[in-house]
């Protein structure tokens, strides 16, 4: 029996698993046995760190060295150099995007330094499939305290005092919602966790479910106790099979340990949780459509009132919250509402997890206190825009949200300030765009998504999004007409006012937001038939400049023989034949071909 002197944590989250982390783990196991080190070193499979672009990620303790993009072929070197000899394998370290400085420990990385990882604190640092690891870092202490030291009314009061607001996007005060459900008449009540996470590019909830599922279970159980519910449902999208697997394992382990089930901690409180899988409909992230789906009906929303807190699942009082909202609950109970409310702004307390994607150097999850500026997130945590390009806008809130241009980068992020700016917190997806992104195309892209996902029940959304999409598509193809912008604005107003649910009510947001800050781009498309960003293929052309050396590579690459020219002579593209595929520009070794 030897003392374990090293823990090697390998990320087994969806991102890293798809880049080969399972093979890395197998290779690691073999290599350790080969070198006779298997009794001194423990291999731990963790959940998602939220830094998936750098995966597969490996952290070696006690040094805390953070290795990125580890492949099975790298493992023999890691075992020999680091585990056997105690030296760092420099080539696998993370390098800061602008300075190229190598950073051995993740706490010193710009990406992690500015973050306040409270919800994500365990993600990537514990094995989510072993309940003991969650308990070791203080798990279920919140539930213990709630059940044995607090009354349900006290818990509701604490939640209200904390100022926590729904993290799914609407930002409704959580404590208030719990109170409505608690006060609603009825013996059978339900707790529902919305784990549908439909926003394209958002993966905050996925990370928490894969990396720290017990935190969500604990939050739901505390909610059940506070409102008088004995059953909970987690509605998780089927596109997250690993999250679903981990949830099932977590529920079973919690039940086996008596932390879920009957008479928890001898308090007389019973709480059972079931997992229901979604079936690929964005609209089922909307609460009433979600409840309909759990009941086995077609996922379409219904008018409110009555709200789910009064009449929800099977007509019973139901409290439905997002994954991230529940993940905040154990923290509030253990640390207290005052401690929780000491972070954030006056009306938006706590931290928020954002998914940083798009044209940014450090793509991943960033958990930051409310009130931080967009500039800090994009440039300090995100590491700025790659390839030296210029920042243009950042889309917040996915298909329901809006964009912020450069002059709004110093906006302090919270629910109110974003809404005032025409954007929306949403679930926290941030898509960063640079000078090569066409804002009209962005609006079209999101409308394309919401149009496909519209359930079809109400006319304003079903017909309205279709018409908006048609107009936007025409504009991006050079068929825009005078009056299109005014028509879009009038349609948007009506769709927002008359749609039955949030999908329709927020679908026009990307259009309104891009019109507010980038109207000139729409006008250029419509009046000049030009795309200023050079992105809309039907409106941009490729030109060969005088940098042409006449090598002829572009001519060979062109699939439609649109390029003419002699060897060593200036080559020319025939714009009528050109299909704007860009193959010539990709081939040119002299950067002589430009778009525009």
């Amino acid at each position: 029996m030897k003392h374990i002197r090293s823990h090697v944590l390998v990320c087994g989250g969806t991102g890293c698993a798809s880049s080969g982390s399972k093979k890395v783990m197998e290779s690691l196991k073999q290599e350790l046995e080969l070198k006779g080190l298997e009794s001194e070193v423990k291999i731990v499979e963790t959940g998602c760190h939220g830094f998936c672009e750098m995966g597969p990620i490996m952290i070696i303790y006690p040094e805390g060295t953070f290795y990125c993009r580890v492949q099975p072929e790298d493992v023999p070197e890691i075992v020999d150099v680091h585990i056997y000899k105690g030296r760092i394998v420099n080539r696998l370290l993370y390098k800061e995007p602008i300075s190229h400085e190598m950073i051995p420990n993740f706490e010193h990385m710009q990406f992690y330094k500015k973050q306040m990882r409270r919800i994500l604190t365990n993600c990537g640092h514990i094995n989510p499939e072993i309940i003991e690891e969650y308990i070791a870092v203080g798990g279920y202490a919140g539930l213990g305290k709630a059940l044995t030291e607090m009354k349900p009314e006290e818990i509701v009061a604490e939640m209200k005092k904390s100022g926590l607001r729904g993290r799914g996007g609407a930002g409704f005060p959580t404590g208030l919602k719990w109170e409505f459900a608690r006060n609603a008449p009825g013996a059978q009540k339900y707790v529902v966790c919305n784990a549908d996470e439909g926003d394209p590019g958002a993966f905050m909830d996925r990370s928490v479910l894969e990396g720290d599922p017990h935190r969500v279970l604990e939050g739901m159980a505390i909610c059940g106790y506070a409102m008088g519910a004995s059953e909970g449902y987690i509605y998780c999208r089927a596109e997250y099979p690993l999250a679903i697997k981990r949830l099932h394992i977590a529920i079973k382990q919690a039940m086996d340990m008596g932390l879920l089930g009957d008479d928890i901690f001898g308090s007389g409180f019973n709480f059972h949780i079931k997992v229901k899988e979604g079936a690929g409909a964005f609209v089922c992230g909307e609460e009433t459509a979600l409840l309909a789906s759990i009941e086995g009906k077609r996922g379409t929303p219904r008018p409110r009132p009555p709200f789910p807190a009064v009449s929800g699942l099977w007509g019973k009082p139901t409290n439905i919250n997002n994954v991230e909202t529940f993940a905040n609950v154990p923290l509030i109970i253990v640390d207290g509402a005052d401690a929780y409310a000491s972070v954030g702004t006056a009306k938006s307390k706590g931290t928020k997890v954002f998914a940083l994607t798009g044209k940014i150097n450090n793509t991943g999850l960033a958990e930051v206190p409310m009130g931080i500026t967009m500039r800090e997130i994009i440039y300090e945590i995100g590491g700025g825009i790659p390839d030296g390009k210029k920042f243009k806008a950042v889309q917040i809130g996915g298909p329901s949200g809006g964009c912020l241009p450069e002059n709004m980068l110093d906006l302090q992020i919270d629910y109110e300030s974003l809404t005032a700016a025409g954007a929306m917190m949403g679930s926290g997806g941030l898509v960063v765009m640079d000078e090569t992104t066409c804002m009209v195309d962005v609006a079209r892209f999101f409308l394309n998504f919401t149009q496909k996902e519209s359930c079809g029940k109400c006319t304003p959304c079903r017909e309205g999004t279709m018409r908006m999409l048609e107009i936007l598509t025409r504009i991006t193809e050079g068929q825009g007409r005078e009056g299109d912008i005014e028509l879009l604005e009038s349609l948007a107003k009506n769709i927002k006012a008359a749609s039955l649910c949030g999908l329709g009510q927020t679908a026009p947001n990307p259009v309104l937001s891009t019109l507010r800050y980038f109207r000139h781009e729409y006008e250029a498309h419509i009046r000049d038939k030009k795309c200023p960003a050079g992105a809309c293929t039907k409106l941009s052309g490729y030109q060969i400049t005088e940098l042409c050396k006449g090598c002829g590579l572009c001519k060979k690459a062109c699939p439609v023989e649109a390029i003419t020219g002699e060897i060593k002579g200036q080559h020319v593209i025939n714009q009528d034949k050109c299909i704007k595929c860009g193959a010539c520009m990709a081939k040119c070794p002299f950067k002589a071909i430009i778009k525009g």
Partner: protein
Amino acid sequence: MKTVEDLKRLREKLQTDNQIRHAAGTQIIVGMGTCGIAAGAREVLSAILDEIAKAKIQDVNVTQTGCIGMCEQEVLVDIVKAGGPRISYGKVTPDFIPKLISEHVVNDRIVEERVIGKITK
């Protein structure tokens, strides 16, 4: 898990297992440069790990370092107790380990006659 006390006890027990991922009190550093390995540092490291497991010592991290240039004195083992100076022992062999661990690590008594250097903060 019948009571909150059961949970607390389990947590305390488990915290020591995963404490390696957080800061530790005592550091034991074994020289693992080429000179160290040639002098038998692997066997010394193995003996240290065996002894720690046998004596059930908590809150200790064992790491390696490279060659510090005093190759003649290898195998070098440094011990740093929390907040204390770094004591370097030279020409360490596996048979010396049980005494070293019990004297210095457990009972805080530096084995003066085997020390070759000391670095204070």
